[in-house]
């Protein structure tokens, strides 16, 4: 995980080209295989894609985009979702009904439509994707958290806080939240991957990040078009890197959960 982060942060200093700079890449380098395969050559260690972008450089830059999308997406979606879920589950009644029906409304709209809507208002870009992900992603958190809060709030230690007159906000943050943390962490580790993939899918549908600033997902979906033609390196490497990231995040998530969950000790 650390490696992934380091690569994302400092990798750009070491890449052979800046894949975002259109004048730096040349079509004449398109579809070069990795250097160990016949026809491949340095400095394109992992080969090049359809625009002549060095895959390795593109992965390094792309991972920054993807990580930003994954993490910020989870922070936004999770932040909204957890807060609303806590409130809905804890207060119940009309508040719960309102929030949950809002969730139902939200669920009915496909990510794609929302992304399209945003695109027709704003320019194509990462912020669009983030808004779309947050708008779509909070529901899952809210519903999961709410479900658990419904159980937790009936527990004695929570009811006890009412007796001692603790303000609701403190009860929620100090006593309810820690007890639903496991699901949140699990969900988040899954969602980061999910968001990176959602972005890939949006790219697949032509609604993702700008083609000049490819994310891992976009690299992967670009390359996927030529997978059957034997140009495997274009999509395999970004794909593997996504797996690596998701795997790292999951390890991190497991660690966090074990570390902060007193119930597992």
């Amino acid at each position, binding site marked *: 995980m650390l490696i992934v982060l380091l690569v994302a942060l400092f990798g750009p200093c070491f890449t052979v080209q800046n894949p975002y700079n259109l004048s730096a890449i040349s*079509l004449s380098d398109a579809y070069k295989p990795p250097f160990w395969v016949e026809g491949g050559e340095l400095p394109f260690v992992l080969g090049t894609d359809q*625009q002549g972008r060095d895959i390795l450089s593109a992965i390094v830059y792309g991972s920054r985009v993807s990580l930003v999308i994954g993490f910020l997406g989870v922070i936004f979606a999770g932040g909204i979702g957890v807060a609303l879920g806590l409130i809905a589950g804890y207060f119940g009644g009309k508040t719960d009904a309102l929030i949950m029906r809002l969730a139902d409304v939200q669920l009915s709209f496909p990510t794609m439509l929302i992304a399209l809507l945003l695109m027709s208002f704003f320019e194509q870009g990462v912020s669009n994707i983030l808004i779309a992900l947050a708008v779509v992603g909070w529901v899952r958190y809210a519903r999961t958290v709410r479900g658990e809060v419904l159980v937790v709030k009936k527990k004695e230690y929570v009811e006890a806080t009412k007796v001692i007159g603790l303000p609701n906000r403190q009860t929620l943050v100090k006593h309810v939240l820690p007890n639903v943390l496991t699901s949140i962490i699990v969900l988040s580790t899954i969602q980061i991957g999910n968001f990176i993939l959602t972005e890939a899918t949006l790219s697949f549908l*032509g*609604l993702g990040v700008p083609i000049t600033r490819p994310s891992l997902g976009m690299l992967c979906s670009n390359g996927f078009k030529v997978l*059957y033609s034997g140009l495997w390196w274009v999509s395999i490497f970004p794909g593997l890197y996504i797996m690596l990231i998701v795997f790292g995040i999951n390890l991190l998530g497991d660690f966090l959960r074990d570390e902060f969950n007193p119930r597992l000790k």
Partner: protein
Amino acid sequence: MKYRLLCGVLVSILCLSGGLSAVAADRELIVGLAGDAYSLNPYPRNETITNAINNHIFDSLIGSDNDLQPIPALAERWETSEDASVWTFFLRKGVKFHNGNDFTVDDVLYSFDKVKIRETSAFSFTLSTVESYKKLDDHTFEVTCKAPNSLLLAHLREISILDKESCDGQTEDWIALHPNGTGRYKLVEHVREDRIVLERNEAFWGDLPEPVKVVFKPISNDGTRTANMLSGAVDMIVNVPVRDVEMLRKRENIAVVTQPSLRIIYLNMQGWTDSPSPDAAKPLKSPDGSNPLKKLEVRQAMYHAINEDEIVSKIMNNLATPTATYIPAGFNGYNPDIKRLPYDPVLAEQLLDKAGYPRQADGYRFELTLDSSNDRYVNDGDIATAVAGYLERVGIKTNLNLMSRTIFFTYIGTKNTEGDTSHLCMTGWADSGGESALMALDLMYSIRQDGEVKPGYGGVNRSFYLNPKVDALIDKAISTPDPAERSKIMQEVWQIGADDVVYIPLHFQEDIYAANKDKIIYRPRKNNYIYAWDFEFVK
């Protein structure tokens, strides 16, 4: 509807489970298409796949040969007045609809009436130039045009003829579910997005096509279509992705058939206006605030800066033809004298300097935004990216604005429904009629930022090209019935367009098909319409 579908399904099961033995299985054809027919009512949608499938079931008065030139179909022959304004058509006799009804003039006039209803017909434009039509006898009728119109045949070609007797008084839905034409094939079943099954109409008036039964399978994903071809689940596929061609060619039993299509990919530049795209998110910016695209040298420089050969070889895998003009060779109005401006970045930079746009301190001359779709044309996103790269290298800062076709066409529309937003965009255009004058009418006829110069003309003139001389030539061509003479006028029009660099043409896409060569031979049509009668069985 459901009941009918159900029946269809049941019938097909019966067929598949043995009843089919009556039909020679080796005369059966399965084709993987890129999409489904939207409706088997031929009028509401005007779209390639829908039209092609409906053409199996329905005939028109006029047919097309392989070069898209008109040939007799339900109309056996026709006569025209001197100035091409009054046309008389003589219908074929003894033709029957699938349900056994006779084909007469009444059916033609009924169909014409229906076609004109804008609410339910996408073909109303075909009769917009027609003043009136009247029945002379059961098999003869007369059409009077508003103005001399040499293009009537090209338009009538698009009108499928319905059976008045069975359709009159029925709803549009009913007509769509009970397609009844005079065509070579009858509908067996249509399961939306899954298959359309047709069987040969043994009572067809002309030569019987070879395939006895045809199954069209809509498979919209490129990779899946290729996979179906590889697995042998289909006998032929259309729109093969360019990158899959090499791999398919290596297969012993698969033949890849390619043919230059009518679709040209080109760049539009707002070069005839002082305030290009004021509503764009990132408007055009030049140091002195002028519109650089107005300068011929700048347009020429951009032309010179683009290495089209490299685009074709690297992005299109050599499956595209670089072009200097907008219609393919061999078509009416083609001008062989027009040549591409060669790739020459050095010359491009000189031209830009000369035009008064030297490189500034930041290394750039001026700033543009290139709008393009990324899911409409073959590898459109990649082509646009490459173009932006070439422009950057001669010092033109190029923002790339790629979008889905869903919003792209509204965004760049000449009608400016959402404001004038695009000064440089990459689009494609094709005229399935293969008629130069029709194409120029849309592409070259003057139009202004604030509206049409002549209603219905210049519909996709996104450069806002203004040239009365060209307008006059186009008007003249349309009223010239003689194809050879018309061709000459059009050659002049295209020459003027090329000299003015109205657009930067890139290439013609190639239609690519893959077929099972042990079983069939396919001769593609120029307009990418798939017809079962273009297939021949090997054995």
